[in-house]
């Protein structure tokens, strides 16, 4: 028990003293996952609007694909990305394996279907009568779309946060494509670790297996804080939405 308390205290110290290794791991996580979420939102939300307002061939098939994507194990997504980008794979010439770029790609593929799926659901949840009211009042398709997006705004943001939740907490994909790499730098104070592709989530199993419980707990605390903030935002939006309705 004392050992546990001691571990937690040392973890808090690592965070508060801005330990370079801890900071660099957290930075990689935040840069990679935030980029993935921003890219996924920027592409998924317009597509969601298109999906709800236009009919086109294979629409149902694409919807099924999106649903499948939402349920795909991240580790499998990571594997697929890996085999495409590995040296002898079809995109191997890009030389992206074990870089932050490929991590963004993998997490983008994880976030995209969730944001798209939740946004489509949010837009479809806007009562049909809202659209028809806008139409009967003389609105054009574009104006109706604006009305619907406004009504679905809370739901779309919830979808983006859900996507963020998925990629920040995820281990399988990012470990497979990123490789969990950190390297050493010599400084006047001694040798320190710096993360190249190691993230909060991939660092935890590594540090526990190497016996550095304090570092693992430090990473866990930061990760927990991030997901806690995301959850807080989601439940805040839920409450706002239920007051609105």
């Amino acid at each position, binding site marked *: 028990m004392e050992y546990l308390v001691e571990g937690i205290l040392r973890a808090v110290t690592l965070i508060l003293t801005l330990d370079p290794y801890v900071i660099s791991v957290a930075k990689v996580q935040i840069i990679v996952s935030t980029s993935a979420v921003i890219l996924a939102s920027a592409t998924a939300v317009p597509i969601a609007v298109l999906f709800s307002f236009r009919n086109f061939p294979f629409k149902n098939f694409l919807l099924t694909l999106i649903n499948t994507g939402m349920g795909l194990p991240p580790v499998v997504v990571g594997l697929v990305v890996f085999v495409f980008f590995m040296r002898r794979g079809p995109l191997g010439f890009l030389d992206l394996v074990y870089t932050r770029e490929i991590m963004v790609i993998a997490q983008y593929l994880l976030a995209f279907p969730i944001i798209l799926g939740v946004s489509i659901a949010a837009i479809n949840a806007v*009562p049909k*009568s*809202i659209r*028809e*009211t*806008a*139409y*009967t*009042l*003389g*609105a*054009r398709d574009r*104006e109706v779309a604006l*009305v619907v997006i*406004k*009504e679905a705004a809370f739901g779309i943001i919830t979808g983006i946060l859900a996507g963020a939740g998925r990629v920040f907490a995820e281990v399988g994909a990012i470990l497979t494509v990123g490789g969990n790499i950190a390297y050493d730098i010599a400084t006047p104070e001694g040798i320190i670790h710096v993360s190249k592709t190691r993230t909060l989530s991939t660092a935890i199993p590594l540090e526990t297996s190497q016996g550095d419980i304090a570092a693992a707990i430090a990473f866990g605390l930061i990760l927990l804080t991030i997901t806690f903030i995301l959850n807080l935002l989601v439940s805040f939006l839920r409450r706002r939405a239920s007051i*609105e*309705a």
Partner: protein
Amino acid sequence: MRRSIVRLENISKHFSGREVLSRINLEIREGELLTLLGPSGAGKTTLMRIINLFTKPSEGKLYFRDREVTRLSGDALLEVRRSMVMVFQKPVMFSGSVFDNVAYGLRIRGYSRAEIERRVKEALRLVGLEGYEERNARTLSGGEAQRVAFARAVVIQPELLLLDEPTTSLDPISEARVHSIIRKIKELGISVVLTTHKQHEAIALGDRVAVLKDGKLQQVGTPQEVIYTPKTRFVAEFTGMVNIYDGVVEEVGSTHCTVRVGEVALMMHAFEASRGERICIGIRPEEVMLLRTDVPLNPRHKNVLTGVVSEISPQGSAMLRLRIASGGFEVSADVPRHVAEKMSIRKGGEVLFSLKTSCLRRLEE
């Protein structure tokens, strides 16, 4: 004759094999209030949606101001649709203020700020919601939301207003308020189509009444025509003609026919039929005439029968409905309370009554 705004020509609509509307021919005229009366499932809402260009008919043609608009799309559709507005049975509010809601149709039409403010104010006054501009539209009561929906529609000054069951499930006081708003809207010169399943509403509001059943137009006419000369058995039933009988034509004369209903032979105004034909006849309960037994029978009374009162129940406030059995022939009669009192009518008592030949009407099945 007033100019036509909308004309439906042989309009039919199928949904997955089911015929929801069948060969509808109907004209909506400038300045009139047409009520579309029918039970739920008759196709009233589908008809409204076809007029508002939401639903394309499966067959037939739709005209707006004598221009065919059946298969319009894009800007041409938009232009026609912008001449009318529909208020749905359960109006929804856009999130935002009451002002935002009422202003919506004007904003997308590009009106100036000042004009929008003036018109919104006027529309809210019309529905009795002055000063509600800044209220959150989602916090309104059901009745208030409905009035905002009316304002939101009228503010555009449409040529035609489509009201889909605006008073279903309202209590009588709210209903009366909605009726008065509708009358005010009509005075603005806006033509109105209103669907309802309430006979009294169709009759009280409509310049003309169109009766719809199972997607088929049963009859179109003034309220009086629909009530007193219903064409079909359904119209008769739906407008409260509770006495309906199946009979057989016994005699066909030049001025009168005789129809046998069970053991009773009834004399009616002449109509085209052949002896032995089975027909359906009806009489409104308020047209059954009770006769005094203390004075000699006037020979101009036809179809005079005696019967026993088997049931008395209130019918509205002013009338009593009597169920009278004359052997196997039964009839319901509505009698003003004071008349019933004067004639000391009571359950089990005997009464003399007459069915005027002009009040017995032949009905199509």
